[in-house]
């Protein structure tokens, strides 16, 4: 008996079918497990182990290698501030401190309500639009300290169901690495990447 919903089980089967060997599906299945529980629980890792036919310890060894598999309770909005070289040169540290200060959440931690997690991250490939921040891996480029504070307050008050990169860029962003072209209505629904095979893409209401 799987602990996963019917829908997640269907997705798991589909994902496994896309690889010549089922162990290759460990990484996408770990994201499925995160989407089920909000973060990666021990039970989630045990379930992944059953699906791909390896031991829970092997699954844990994979999960612990990668930074995006959050094995502790993570907020509904994961705010990741880049402090790598190009962002640092243009004030990335100040952005991180503004987010920490405004939210009251130090990097690496989550607020009591389970709404916001704050982390500092290494390069997220937005160096031409530094300093950059991601919310649930949806990007905002050219952020200022003031806008970063606004972002925290917006997340707390608006509590968007779907975190949309174009909307956030419009509200809180500035210089971009390149022209993003057409805007999209899709976005993230939790602290994991929004990608359709994982079933983690949300569409903004009213669009």
């Amino acid at each position, binding site marked *: 008996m799987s602990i996963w919903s019917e829908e997640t089980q269907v997705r798991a089967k589909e994902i496994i079918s*896309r690889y*010549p*060997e089922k*162990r*290759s*599906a*460990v*990484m*996408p299945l*770990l994201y499925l497990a995160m989407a089920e529980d909000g973060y990666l629980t021990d039970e989630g890792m045990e379930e992944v182990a059953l699906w*791909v036919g390896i031991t829970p310890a092997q699954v844990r*060894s*994979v999960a612990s*290698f*990668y*930074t*995006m*598999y959050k094995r502790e309770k993570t907020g509904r909005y994961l705010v990741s501030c880049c*402090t*790598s*070289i*190009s962002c*640092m*040169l*243009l004030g*990335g*540290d100040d952005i*991180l*401190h503004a987010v920490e200060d405004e939210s009251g959440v130090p*990097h690496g931690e989550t607020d009591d309500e389970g709404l916001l997690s704050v982390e*500092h*991250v*290494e*390069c*997220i*490939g*937005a*160096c*031409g*639009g*530094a300093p950059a921040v*991601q919310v649930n*891996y949806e*990007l905002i480029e050219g952020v200022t300290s003031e806008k970063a504070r606004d972002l925290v307050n917006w997340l707390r008050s608006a509590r968007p169901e779907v975190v949309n*990169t174009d909307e956030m860029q419009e509200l809180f962003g500035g*210089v971009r*690495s*390149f*022209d993003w*072209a*057409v805007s*999209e209505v*899709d976005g993230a629904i939790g602290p994991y*990447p*929004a*990608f*359709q*095979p*994982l079933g983690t*893409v949300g569409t903004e209401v009213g669009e």
Partner: protein
Amino acid sequence: MSAALIVTRRMIDHPADSHRIDVYEDTGGYVQARRAVGMTRDELVDTVKASGLLGRGGAAFSAGLKWSFLAPARPAYLVINADESEPGTFKDRQLLERDPHQMVEGIIITAIANEVHHAFIYIRGEYPKSARRVQAAVDEAYACGYLGSGIFGSDHDLEVTIHLGGGAYICGEETALINSLEGKRGEPRLKPPYFPAAKGLYMLPTIVNNVETVSNLPHILDMGAEEYGKVAHETDTGTFLFSVSGHVNGPGNYELAHGITWRELIYEVAGGIRDDRKLKAWIPGGASAPWFVPAQHLDLEITKEATEGAGSMLGSGAVIVMDETTCTVRAAERLVRFFAHESCGQCTPCREGTTWMEMILRRIEEGQGREVDLDLLLDVSDGISIGLAWPPKMTTICPLGPSAVSPVIALRDYFRDEVMEHVRLGRCPLGTAARGASNSETDIDRPEVLAVETRRERGSGGRPPGEGSPA
């Protein structure tokens, strides 16, 4: 200055919708993939070899030669490395989001040339938007019969699977990427014997190509190897995407042929230094590359040979520009912190060395440095990359560890006085003491840490003991 745009032409001509299949096909898209279906492996490999196409992921190895090494066993696999994570690099993100079909067409051509029936696109986890755009393009290509069984009505089948990474820089190293794709920790494999062309994914022959590399393929077939080869500076054929970031007025991706000077790239193409400040240093090829400084390198031509001759590399094409307000100790600390965080932990020199280097650099930046610290830093660096030569002598399975040494070499060669000023003043002379977050949990003030360092100093011999030497 950009005489010929190749891979960014379509996105400039069609700013709103270059990622859609109808626009792609209206502008000559998929014509070359259709042609390639009727060509032999030899014809395709020879064309790519003749074009002189170099891999765009960082190692700049001949793409055609890489293909020709593919062992005869089948099935063989193609893996597209879209795990772009070298600090300073954001070129592949633009190609993935703005012209994904160009890459898909390159995948089809590569698959036909190498008798591959299953390709994987490994996209870094922090690029979900890129993954969504690529998935949409792949879905469109499947619907048109350009992917799937019997592509373009031929008997060639080609499946494409998009795989999302988990946030590990090291997975950009091709053997680590393969381990990751097999559902394992992203730890690099030993070469030999695990050259992907012979023993790659599932121990079968595998080609790993970068996004920009395969995005050039439709154009090579379209222009012909000879014409493509003319867009060149001597042996560096085709155009290269430069990701320019840092203290310039015009950061961004620029598609250029090699041969202009650094002065032209920084002051003309990228619009010069912000607020007309002075240029202090720049990193010519991503975080791993040794730095350049204006007094020595500004009028150097940007070519593979000239850059390597001057002791650095063009790497992933990331140019990180630092103006006179930059504290080079802080910049070095930030770069080394990256490598310490991203070290996979297999090899002791890298795992331990990068962590020590980060701690020593932070201590200097925070005003707690000692006279001997630069030498100590060089000693630890020497343990990772013997002789501090370029290209580095390897003590590790992959080049990540030796890459961490590059900023330290810059401090030794160009900014020794600035380092010593930190020590003398007991603070950062530029007033930008690193207040940033640290990846390392270790407290640099802990007495046992100093004791370990002094043991190292004694062990290495011949160097004067530091202030922290044991009583």
